[in-house]
């Protein structure tokens, strides 16, 4: 596994950002020349104080938002050169999402939710894999349930199963444990870690919680839209210490 310094981009990266700038409404510089790569099979946490641009980084990296300047390559595709609906097709094929709000479709059952991206893509869903993923997140047998009938932790695990069911090259998480209590949050993180370790999945996760970041292989720090260093093999204490420095 190659861990790359934030200032360079390596060929093995699933997602790479080069000198990415994002300006909102002409004035607010959310990202200011960020260059960072995320290696295949790695688990990266993105941290920074409020307003440091971490969510913007995630949105740009995932093709949910287009950068004002610079280059984003996602699974070998130059995102900046793509427009909707091509962009959706690329996201659908290569990316899975887990958000703080679970973004499940209430009208559909757990099973239909999990298979929804592949149905939208018009591909034949890999039902065996979907069933296995659901079993691995501990929801085997709940296929017929509605999201509204599940607890928050269970809903997030459905979202995780949905993200994984399409065998994406990278999973993006935006505060995936933000709406969960400590122990359910820990379960979701353990699942993410497990998928990285056993299935060679790639995870990029924005969080503000040092304890959550400690599950990652590497933590990338952002401050005022710029990269502010990183930390390999983090522990909660070291992450917390860096965060204290950044906010000072």
């Amino acid at each position: 596994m190659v861990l790359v310094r934030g200032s360079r981009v390596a060929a093995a990266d699933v997602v790479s950002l080069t000198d990415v700038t994002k300006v909102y409404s002409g004035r607010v510089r959310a990202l200011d020349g960020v260059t960072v790569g995320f290696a295949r099979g790695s688990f990266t946490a993105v941290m920074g104080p409020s307003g440091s641009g971490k969510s913007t980084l995630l949105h740009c990296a995932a093709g949910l938002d287009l950068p004002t300047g610079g280059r984003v390559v996602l699974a070998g595709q130059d995102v900046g050169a793509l427009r909707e609906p091509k962009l959706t097709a690329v996201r659908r094929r290569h990316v899975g999402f887990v958000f703080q709000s679970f973004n499940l479709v209430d009208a559909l059952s757990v099973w239909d939710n999990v298979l929804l991206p592949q149905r939208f893509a018009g591909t034949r869903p890999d039902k065996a894999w979907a069933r296995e993923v659901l079993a691995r997140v501990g929801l085997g047998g709940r296929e017929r349930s509605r999201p509204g009938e599940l607890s928050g932790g269970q809903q997030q695990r459905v979202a995780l199963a949905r993200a994984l069911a399409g065998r994406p090259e990278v999973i993006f998480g935006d505060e995936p444990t933000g709406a969960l209590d400590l122990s359910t949050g820990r379960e979701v993180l353990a699942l993410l870690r497990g998928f990285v370790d056993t299935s060679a999945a790639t995870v990029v996760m924005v969080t503000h919680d040092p304890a959550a970041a400690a599950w990652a292989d590497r933590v990338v720090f952002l401050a005022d839209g710029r990269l502010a260093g990183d930390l390999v093999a983090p522990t909660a204490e070291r992450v917390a210490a860096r965060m204290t420095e950044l906010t000072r």
Partner: protein
Amino acid sequence: MMLKLGVASVRRRPGAFAGTFLTAFLAVALISGSGLLLHSVLTAGPGGDRFAAVDLVVAADRSVELTTTRDKGDEVKVKTKTERLTGAGALPAELVGVVAATPGVGTAVADVAFPVALDVDGTPVRAPERASVVAHGWSSASLTPYVLRDGVAPAAGEVAVGAELGLAVGQAVRLTTKTGAREVRVAGVVTGGVPGQAAVFVADRQVTDLSGLTGPTAIAVGLAPGADRRQVVAALDELATLDSARVHTGADKVNGDLPGAVPDYVGAISIFGFVLGITGFAAVFVLTGTVSLAVRQRLRELALLRTAGATPRQLRRLLGTEITLVTVVATVPALPFGVVVAHVVAGRFRELGAVPAQFAVAVDPVVLIAAAVLGLLVTRSATSVAARRAVRISPTQALRETVTAARGSRVPRVVGAAVPAAGAVAVLGLVPLGGPLGMGMGFVSCALLLCAAAALGPILVGGVTAVVSRLVGSTGVLGRVAGAMTRAESRRVVGVAIPLTLMFAINATMLVNGDITAEVTAGQQAARTAPATVQVAATNAPGLPLAIAERVVALPAVTGSALTVGTKVVVDQEGKPEDYPAQGLRLAGERALDLGVTAGDLARLAADSVAVSGPLAAQRGWEVGDRPTFWLADGTRVTLTVVAVFSHWRGFGDLVLDAGLVAAHDPRGLVGAIHLRGAPDLAGFPLAPAEAGAAEVRNQQAAWELMVAVSLGFTAIAVVNTFAIATGARRREFAGLRLAGATSRQLHRLLDREALITVVVALVLGCAISGVVVGAFSVAQDGRWRLFADPLRYLGMVAGVGLLGLVAGAVPARVVVRLRSLPQLG
């Protein structure tokens, strides 16, 4: 506190209230518009008063008055009902002298008013704005007064005419009255007079001859100088009652004029009452739906306020404050818009002849205030209905991902639906829909069924949705998702489908019922006139004098004939006098008119007998041989023997009397149509082939369709509005679907399928409701069950409403989710 929050909430997010605002605006505008129209016809004066310049008018009663006394055990109830006559009874000729001799009377002028028709070489001379042309003796000219502009007063064989008729002194014109047609010379042109009637004056000594009346229709009285008005009135009253006449004073004097000369607002009152009823109902209905949707989309916010410590009562107050604010703001532009609507509709109705030409909209601030208050009451009560459940939302819902209102018991819904449904069944089952109340009652039962459908909403729509959504679901993944969404969110489907159901059911019922009436009428008309080989009507005047018509039917080539004289006859409907269209009929030779006699024999029709339509006979329980009492057009009370019951009454009349009897007692008394067998040479008579009554039916149909257009417009805007609200509230859901990998185009197609499901559900319900009402109405007309009269028109309506729904669904979807847009997060 809640006031402040409410104001802030509306001010900060006006967009969230745009839908409610628009609905409230339209509702208040329509309620105020139709309220103004109804108020204007109700308070419309009878136009100019020809008797304005005199003090008192003695005239026969212009209405039939019936008083019933019902002994209810503990109290005796006395009810008096009246019905206006269409003619004027003549007073005894010698009464003029008696009145003139009464102490205190200065002048007493006998006025004989009778309708006439003028033509120049067969071309009718018409007064502007469809004013009626009324003739008088020259001595009446002093009453108004009319002043000679050109020429001289008329001698025998001459007339003086109002300037508005556009005739010149010396011109020869033909004057047609019921006693005959005469060539006369215009001796003078007068100015003055009153709007709505054009005057023709004849020599006083020719009056009796021309009018066929035995005495004056009114005596205009001028008081002697210094006379005590009250004493004179009392003295005349005593005199007058002997001859069943009355003394008219003040504003009532105009009622002494010829009824046909005074504008009649009875038809307009029922039309505008109907408009107000429909718009009022649609406004309440649509507002309730819109407000419910708007409240539902704010459930999360309400739950948040609950967590912040708001009680349900406070939330209700908050919602109430907001809606009050929105309604008040909407009322400001709505009232002027309502005034404009009233003017536009009134203008159209004037053109169609559905209201008198001189009808004007009176903008009464009281009506506007009432409309504003009514609008506010409606929005507030709609809010309290919509908020009933929503405000009881538990605070913990704010923390949950999915927010749903508490599900109540089904019992109140079922009860709320059963009551109006039972009402509709009662109306359809008990009211004779074939009669004059048919149209109105059809609408009432339609409205009741809609209320039932709305109350039963989620249950009913859920059932239909379950079927329809599965059909759509078989069209692929998007169909499946759309199907699942509509099933899970059946309340949203209800909210959007019900206005569409309303739009279809109300308008289809009104249009189809109108079509059916027209179709049945045309059918009966055709059956009635089938035996005749020739049908003619006068071209120079509204009809032919009976004497001339008799010369036509006496032509040697005529082997059979039937001539009809239109009139109105008042019937005692259990203490309530009601007027019915009737015909005077004279038959000779072979049968030329087929009235579809079901009992008795029309050949026995004579001056002392009557034939009755099937529905009227059934309703009154009359059989051949019975002797009911009627009042003729001039108020003459007659008792006639029923000699026949007939079935082809539509477009004709409910009563058939002897032509001579009708001609003698109806002021117009002209033969409207002559039905002949044989091939006579009619040259020399001002006659042309004709279909009787067609123009009037067309006008009514046009007025009816205008009303449908107004209600279609309102309901269409409501539908579009509802779709926009429902779609706008789902941004969050759309972002989720985009994240799950849906492209914008896929979302559009998904939403189109949802709209399709909603539209189909709405149309199924709408067709069912209108089908029940139209079916019952149709059976009541002629025993045949129909879902529609004209299949193409019905299909067009289904397609039109369906298309509107689909477009109304598609457009907001494309506005909210732009084709090339990135997922809208947050």
